[in-house]
């Protein structure tokens, strides 16, 4: 059985300035935006569009729940760098993608979400499957539209793609009433976008760049914090070149993993609530913090009052509203990360004299690495992550949900390349990882895709195993099964006197049988001595595999900054 990952999308470009239906315009516009694949689920109000999808032969992946479709679109967007397109019907179809839209908004993923809507003449009458999706998605989209007039449709689609993919990327919703998709109008797409209220700044101010250069020269303890903005800007090569030129240590955010090679000598690791000791100490003790494309999220900063207390802060971000939002910034630089890094490289400033600082960091790294106690009887989740890393040569595309397994994956899988990591960072969405892996596999058909999931999160979107079966997509599902909501359980242990309120599952489905029900390989492993072998087999298998890995049930993620604490108050560091 061969996989059906690559298939000609069979799109046919019709000439401009022709009369056509709204749904036909949509398909024509998608073709012009080089959309190869859409993820969706049909329904009443979107029927005309689905009729056109049928006739045009554009590649469409049928999810089994709209949430699966939108997370797949997110995974595709994160790994490919192209906009993910999701098509759903009105009312419940549209409300089922809300979580994914909010997830894409907070993690800055470019999505085009087309929602069907009831006919314009019945909007506002509580018609069948009507929901005010423009109102509902206003706070969780970069922008949204309801198409009231067929004449506006080509312009709206063009603007939507422009807004979703430029500046700080984000989701854009187009609400398409049924009658508008059936109406006919003249299709003209070759027109410039005219949005005077939307003019993202790409090229940073030269004076500000110079200030960064000067601050680096003066600094004794500089550190770069590299976030997902580097990845969105496709600026990893520039970051590496700048770091090599200036020899500044680099700390990553959770979402920024892969923006700088983890195996590089100047890579200090991930910072944050469950970040590495050295990375957090680097932020705490630095005298110059250069934030490139990170938004100083609370899970990264810990208590703001204790955050980087000695640092002069430079912040490079394409979204001016992020600068100074949480952390007082001394050198604001509004612009694209790649452009800023290019300019910084061109400045060729005198590097900072920070040998002592780097020695200190290396010493901490040696003294306080990530650690766990090995066990011969039970699989330690950290060990599982190490084995996954080793057996995939660090080259797999990894997706996760949120929680303990996510933190262990982030800690122990060392990403050397960009766009190999899709995780739900800001929103922390359970049920994200598995469908995201499907989208990621479509973006990278030739790379191994490993979806590391919790047993709880997997159950939220497990129905998408249908897609794996239908198209024989070789995603490897690895369930880090501790029969509980691990992170919730950990917090209840630490902060709620071990009152495990609804975090431990009294029963669990048989995941192997679930896989079998979808006619995909399902294997269980609970012996630490056999993990490697089983994983090798799964990775070598030509097709999807579900691995139910029974891990130590009460393992906690460490080190940790307790909520409300600062980086200097980490717990669970290596004794």
């Amino acid at each position, binding site marked *: 059985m061969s996989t059906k990952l690559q298939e000609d999308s069979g799109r046919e470009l019709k000439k401009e300035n022709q009369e056509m239906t709204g749904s036909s315009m949509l398909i024509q516009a998608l073709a012009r935006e080089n959309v190869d694949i859409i993820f969706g689920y049909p329904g009443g109000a979107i029927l005309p569009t689905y009729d056109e999808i049928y006739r045009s032969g554009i590649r469409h992946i049928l999810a089994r729940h709209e949430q699966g479709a939108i997370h797949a679109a997110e995974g595709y967007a994160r790994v490919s760098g192209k906009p993910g397109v999701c098509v759903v019907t009105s009312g419940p179809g549209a409300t089922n993608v809300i979580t994914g839209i909010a997830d894409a908004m907070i993690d800055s993923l470019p999505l085009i979400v087309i929602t069907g809507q009831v006919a314009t003449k019945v909007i506002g009458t509580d018609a069948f499957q009507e929901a005010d999706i*423009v*109102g509902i998605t*206003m*706070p969780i989209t*970069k*922008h949204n539209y309801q198409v009231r007039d067929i004449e506006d449709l080509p312009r709206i689609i063009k603007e939507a793609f422009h*807004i979703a993919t430029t500046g700080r990327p984000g989701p854009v919703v187009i609400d398409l009433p049924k009658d508008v998709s059936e109406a006919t109008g003249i299709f003209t797409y070759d027109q410039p976008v005219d*949005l*005077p*209220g*939307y003019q993202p700044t790409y090229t940073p101010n030269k004076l500000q760049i110079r200030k960064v250069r000067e601050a680096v020269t003066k600094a004794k303890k500089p550190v770069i914090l590299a976030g997902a903005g580097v990845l969105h800007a496709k600026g990893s090569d520039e970051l590496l070149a700048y770091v090599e030129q200036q020899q500044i240590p680099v700390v990553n955010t959770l979402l920024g993993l892969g923006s700088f090679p983890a195996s590089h000598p100047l890579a200090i690791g991930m910072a944050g609530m469950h970040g590495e000791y050295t990375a957090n100490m680097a932020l705490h003790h630095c005298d110059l913090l250069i934030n490139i494309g990170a938004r100083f999220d609370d899970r990264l900063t810990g208590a703001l009052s204790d955050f980087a207390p000695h640092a002069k802060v430079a912040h490079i971000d394409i*979204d*001016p*509203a992020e600068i*100074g*939002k949480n952390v*007082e910034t001394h050198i604001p630089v509004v612009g694209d990360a790649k452009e800023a890094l290019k300019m910084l490289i061109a400045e060729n400033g005198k590097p900072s004299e920070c040998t002592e600082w780097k020695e200190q960091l290396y010493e901490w790294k040696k003294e306080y690495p990530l650690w766990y106690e090995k066990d011969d009887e039970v699989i330690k989740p950290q060990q599982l992550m190490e084995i996954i890393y080793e057996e995939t040569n660090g080259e797999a595309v990894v997706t996760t949900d949120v929680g303990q397994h996510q933190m262990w994956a982030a800690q122990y899988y060392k990403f050397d390349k960009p766009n190999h990591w899709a995780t739900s960072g800001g929103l922390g969405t359970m049920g994200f990882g598995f469908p995201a892996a499907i989208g990621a596999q479509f973006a990278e058909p030739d790379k191994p895709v490993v979806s590391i999931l919790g047993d709880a999160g997997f159950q939220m979107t497990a129905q998408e195993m249908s897609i794996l079966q239908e198209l024989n997509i070789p995603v490897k599902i690895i369930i880090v099964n501790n029969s509980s909501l691990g992170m919730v359980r950990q917090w209840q242990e630490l902060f709620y006197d071990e009152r495990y309120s609804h975090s431990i599952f009294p029963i669990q489905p048989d995941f192997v049988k679930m896989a079998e029900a979808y006619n995909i390989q399902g294997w269980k492993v609970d012996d630490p001595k056999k993990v490697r072998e089983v994983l090798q087999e799964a990775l070598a298998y030509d097709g999807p595999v579900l691995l139910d890995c029974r891990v130590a049930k009460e393992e906690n993620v460490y080190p940790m900054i307790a909520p409300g604490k600062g980086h200097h108050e980490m717990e669970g560091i290596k004794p």
Partner: protein
Amino acid sequence: MKRTIIATVHNTSGVMNRITGLFARRNFNIESITVGLTENPSISRMTFVVNVDDERGLDQVIKQLNKQVDVLKVRDITDEAIIARELALIKVVATPETRGEISTLVEPFRASIVDVGRESVTIQVTGDQQKIEAMIDLLKPYGIKEMARTGVTAFKRGTKKSVLDSPKYSIIS
């Protein structure tokens, strides 16, 4: 601190919803919002009076407004030479005996009595916020039955504020 911010926005359906929603979810404290058409019918002008804790809060209000695709221009005009006006309708308890008194009170404010009932009169007053407040203070002793204020609308002056434009009500202490 109280700041007056003006924004020009695309006059699309839902734009007011976008802005008020933004203020609510970002925890910004708005005292008033006014909105109306400009000389260009496709563009509306909004005037906000906001209460912010510090410079950073103010900075966020302006940046978040600027992030909206439908917002064309945002400006904090508090410290600039501006014309800021508000209109208030105030219904005051008035007996035939007090009517005359109220009428003389209203005159120096260039306010006018726009409706007279058996037990009340309704006064319309226009001016900057201080003037409206002063008018309300003076009318309070008579008993205010109902009041409606529009909130401030403002824009920059064509030239610098001149001496002649000093408040007209300053003679009343």
